[in-house]
């Protein structure tokens, strides 16, 4: 399992670390048993454009790097576009992620969706994403995984 240079760059010097005071939207996903928890706060202007995004993450190198990348990507985006950012998009922007990290460590896109829905609900509007599994503290990201090749039955 090897991280790309870009992942390491974001991990060593993550962008947008912290918490926006009085955010327009906030999302927290992940659970401590898995070891990855992420909080994302966003500021949104009157035209649904994300003007700022910050994160706090407890997690591995991939969790921190993807949090950094997602908060970079969404700044200046309309919320309708931001919710479409997939885990794969984030991995691609980081020149790839080890397969084992795709399941549990790419929480940032989920956190962003929860934060955007939070913003919409606060403003009496319909959420765009609805239920996000990893926002449930008891969510187990490993539950749906197939056994790896060569693993004993």
């Amino acid at each position, binding site marked *: *399992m090897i*991280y790309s240079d870009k992942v*390491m760059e974001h*991990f*060593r010097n*993550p962008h947008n*670390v912290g*918490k926006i005071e009085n955010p327009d939207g906030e999302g*927290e996903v992940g659970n*401590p*048993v*898995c*070891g*990855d*928890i*992420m*909080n994302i706060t966003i500021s949104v202007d009157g035209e649904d454009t994300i003007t700022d995004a910050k994160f*706090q*993450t*407890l*997690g*591995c*190198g*991939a*969790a*921190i790097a993807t949090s950094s990348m997602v908060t970079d990507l969404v700044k200046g985006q309309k919320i309708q576009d931001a919710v479409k950012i997939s885990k794969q998009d984030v991995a691609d922007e980081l020149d790839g992620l*080890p397969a*084992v*990290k795709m*399941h*549990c*460590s790419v929480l940032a896109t989920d956190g962003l969706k929860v934060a955007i829905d939070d913003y919409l609900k606060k403003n009496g509007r319909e959420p765009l994403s609805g239920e996000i599994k990893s926002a449930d503290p008891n969510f187990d990201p*490993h539950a749906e*995984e197939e056994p790896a090749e060569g693993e*004993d039955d």
Partner: protein
Amino acid sequence: MGSKYFDYAATSPMDPRVTEAMLPYYTQEFGNPNSLYTLGRDAARALEAAREKFAAGIGAVQPSEIVFTSGGSEADNAAFFSTLRKVAPDGGHLITSAYEHDAVLETAEWLGKHGYDLTLVKPRKDGHVYPEDVKAALREDTKLVSIMHSNNEIGSINDIKSIAALAHEAGALMHTDAVQSLGKIPFDVVDLDVDMASFSAHKVHGPKGVGALYLKRGTRFDALIKGGGQETKRRSGTQNVAGAVGFATALELALEVRESEAVRLAALRDRVIDGVTSRLENVQATVDTGERLPNIASLLVKGVEGESMLLQLDNLGFSVSTGSACSSGSLEASHVLLAIGVPQVIAHGSLRISLGIDNTEADIDEFIDALVPIVEKLRAMSPVYKKMFCGENPITF
């Protein structure tokens, strides 16, 4: 000297004297030890000299009790499969502990699904497997007990002598994985009275891909690897002469300095533990009572994910291990830590610092100076650190 490498329990650099001892057997002394002509006989003599030296190093009565293998994992596998195929081909009861090395645990669990009954004895919170817990697990049909001599992650040493006596009383064979103990603490197969013990060369400044199984004379054994009948029919395949010479040389060199190194390393181990726990809140030694290896410090750094710590330390040139789920591609936190009752949430923040010949006090101090700000920075970045570990009901071990 001095080194920022703190992962000697993972592997160690080859001692140049070991490399030098091995080199001739790759080049001018390249003979197959099973060939009858001079070149072959010379190789066979070198192999048997290595076997004698190794046997002496672990207190074996006869050199023929040593079977050279491809490593500790093969020795562990053979200890199960090769004996059970002889003494209990139709099944029976097996005992091992829940915090064994994967080479033992996976093997035992496979057998547990294929005709054998398996009991996993839990180590207690202090990191030790208690003889009375093994005693309670023994049955009339117990065929094999395998408990590690010392644990590779937390460094606790088990009372194998007592456990072996109990196993024998019940009519079972006794195996111990001694990979981490060899060359670090006294280890004598006769004193312990085990039937089998596994060893690995690269943990003691020998070559990778070389191991040994001690097999007490008279122990029935069906070779795991079949073929030309080398190693007196216990391990086929042309012997790794250079590897055996390297292993024996490495063990001899390790034993020469063992006592003085044990004292020096134990002081360094305690320096790491004392230094980190005094400078950071919410950090503790995983185990701190009973017999422990002098060279392993296991720390629980609460509220930090281990891989992040490891990578940040690597960025500054330090090499350490972690039992975090995110380490090296596995998804579960260390089974060793979970077995002794460390909560998942805390196990993710474990660090193993395993010390060796090149480490000095100055290295330890440099390491602590590097670790403290890394932990503080990662905790500050966490959305839950204060909530989980600094509130009214902190999560504890």
